[in-house]
């Protein structure tokens, strides 16, 4: 039930973000969620998109290094303390979060959180145990 996220290596210099967006736009690929992790020299652009295969192809054709990574995507109540319910479920099982980012959709009331965990399997069971809805790729298409 994990979802595939696309990660792109981009150098920290002008015009690089734009070039990735252009590559995706050209192929009519819609971005559902996006996050940029950066260091002083380069960054990793993480994307949840409408069509992974087409996105990878478009980016690689433009010379980018791309990788697909499994992530967990969940709904959390869009209210104070919402994210905590998820983190609490990890705390008990000592599950470490590599990174996470959140977005909202106007089609649902919940906020949506994308997570990469040190131990994805354990994380998944912890979420299931706590009745937290894990989204499938199909769910994301409908957002």
């Amino acid at each position, binding site marked *: 039930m994990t979802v595939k*996220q696309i*990660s792109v*290596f*981009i*150098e920290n210099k002008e015009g*690089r973000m734009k070039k990735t967006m252009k590559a995706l736009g050209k192929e009519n690929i819609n971005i559902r969620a996006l996050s940029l*992790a950066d*260091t002083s*020299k*380069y960054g*990793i652009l*993480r994307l949840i998109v409408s069509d992974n295969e087409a996105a990878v192809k478009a980016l*690689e054709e433009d*010379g*980018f*290094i791309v*990788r697909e*990574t499994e992530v967990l995507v969940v709904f959390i109540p869009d209210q104070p303390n919402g994210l905590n319910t998820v983190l609490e479920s990890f705390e008990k099982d000592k599950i470490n979060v*590599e*990174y996470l980012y959140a977005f909202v959709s106007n089609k649902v009331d919940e906020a949506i959180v994308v997570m*990469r965990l040190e131990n994805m399997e354990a994380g998944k069971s912890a979420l299931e145990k706590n009745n937290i809805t894990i989204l499938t790729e199909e769910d994301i298409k409908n957002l």
Partner: protein
Amino acid sequence: MVWNEKAECMEKEEKEQMQLERLQNTVKKAYENVPFYTKKFDEAGITPDDIKTLKDIEKIPFTTKEDLRDTYPFGLFAVPDDEIVEIHSSSGTTGKPVVSGYTEKDLDIWGEVIARAINMANGKKHDRIQNAYGYGLFTGGFGIHHGASKFGATLIPISAGNTKRQIEILKDFQSTILTCTPSYALYLAESLEKAGVSLDEINLKSGIFGAEMWTEAMRKQLEEKLGILALNIYGLTEVMGPGVAIECPEKNGLHINDDHFYPEIIDPKTGASLEEGETGELVFTTLTRDGMPILRYRTKDLTSLIKGKCDCGRTTVRMTRITGRTDDMLKIKGVKVFPSQIEKALLNVEGTSGNYQIIVTRPDLLDEVEVKVEVSREVFSDEIRKLELIEKKITSAIRSEIGIRAEVTLCEPESLPRSEGKAVRVIDKRGLDKG
């Protein structure tokens, strides 16, 4: 099988006699027809008649790259314009370009030495040679072209770049021999992997790679990734272009075509001749070139010579793989560093690309080194700390190779500058005189 058994397997005495006659002839032509040489000889107080033995070559003053630039563009041509049929030129990335002129006979000899190379790479007349050296003023593209037509193989003049098309041609035409720079060959191999093209879909059996320095580790990678025999070819625009020296499948040094190019090794500091086996600067004298005879040209390439018969049966003198250039050698924090050492360090870190650039600066009083490395698919991770770990691994590999800490930066593929398909390996921003 040897392409030209008479020339490539000649006995020592016969070869030396031939070389002496050709040298005397070349010296005479140069002295009589090129004012630059007349002046040099007069200043040194010698005449062509002083060349009585091969050893006498040491009396002739050296020719340097600066001399070639000073006589730019046609100052060293030794024949009237109507005999020159082709001109090539270096790109001039480090200054004024160097020009080389060829007569019909010169082109024929160029073709001959390249034909020897194709033969060494197991070439047959039915082979299809995908020539991915750049066509143009650069000697790479046309050099191979002339050689393939002399040899009689099928030449595919695709020129450098356009990787997608290269892959298509490799698949559709079933090219059997690839000729290009080793760094491009490696890039092409990686692109094939990326495009999901398996070795079963292509038909390469060998590759002739040159025009830039490379290493044994790179050869291993190329042979594995492309399933080929990868051979080294050496040459320089000043002397002819590619084909001055070529490797046979024994891979034990490059056979210098010493019936056309006479090699010497000198101490780069004193100019004194060195013995067989000693490493020093390679110096070439052309023995048969009419259009532009070159006497004792200092190549700035560092190598040593191997005499005696090779296991392949050829007797031509061999040179070891170029390990550095007198002007490539960097002195960083007082330590001698060659780009080939960085390359070696990179190949010790699994998955890294061989494409790198060394940038030396002196922001304050101390030297600082940055090594930029193009990120490869294998090492790219979604997590910053894993990328940082790769940088650390590269840093420590470089440190154990050269003893200096370099700042390692990963950068995007194909983001490092290339000139004529050759990678630009060193940028020295210290503004020092290399002396």
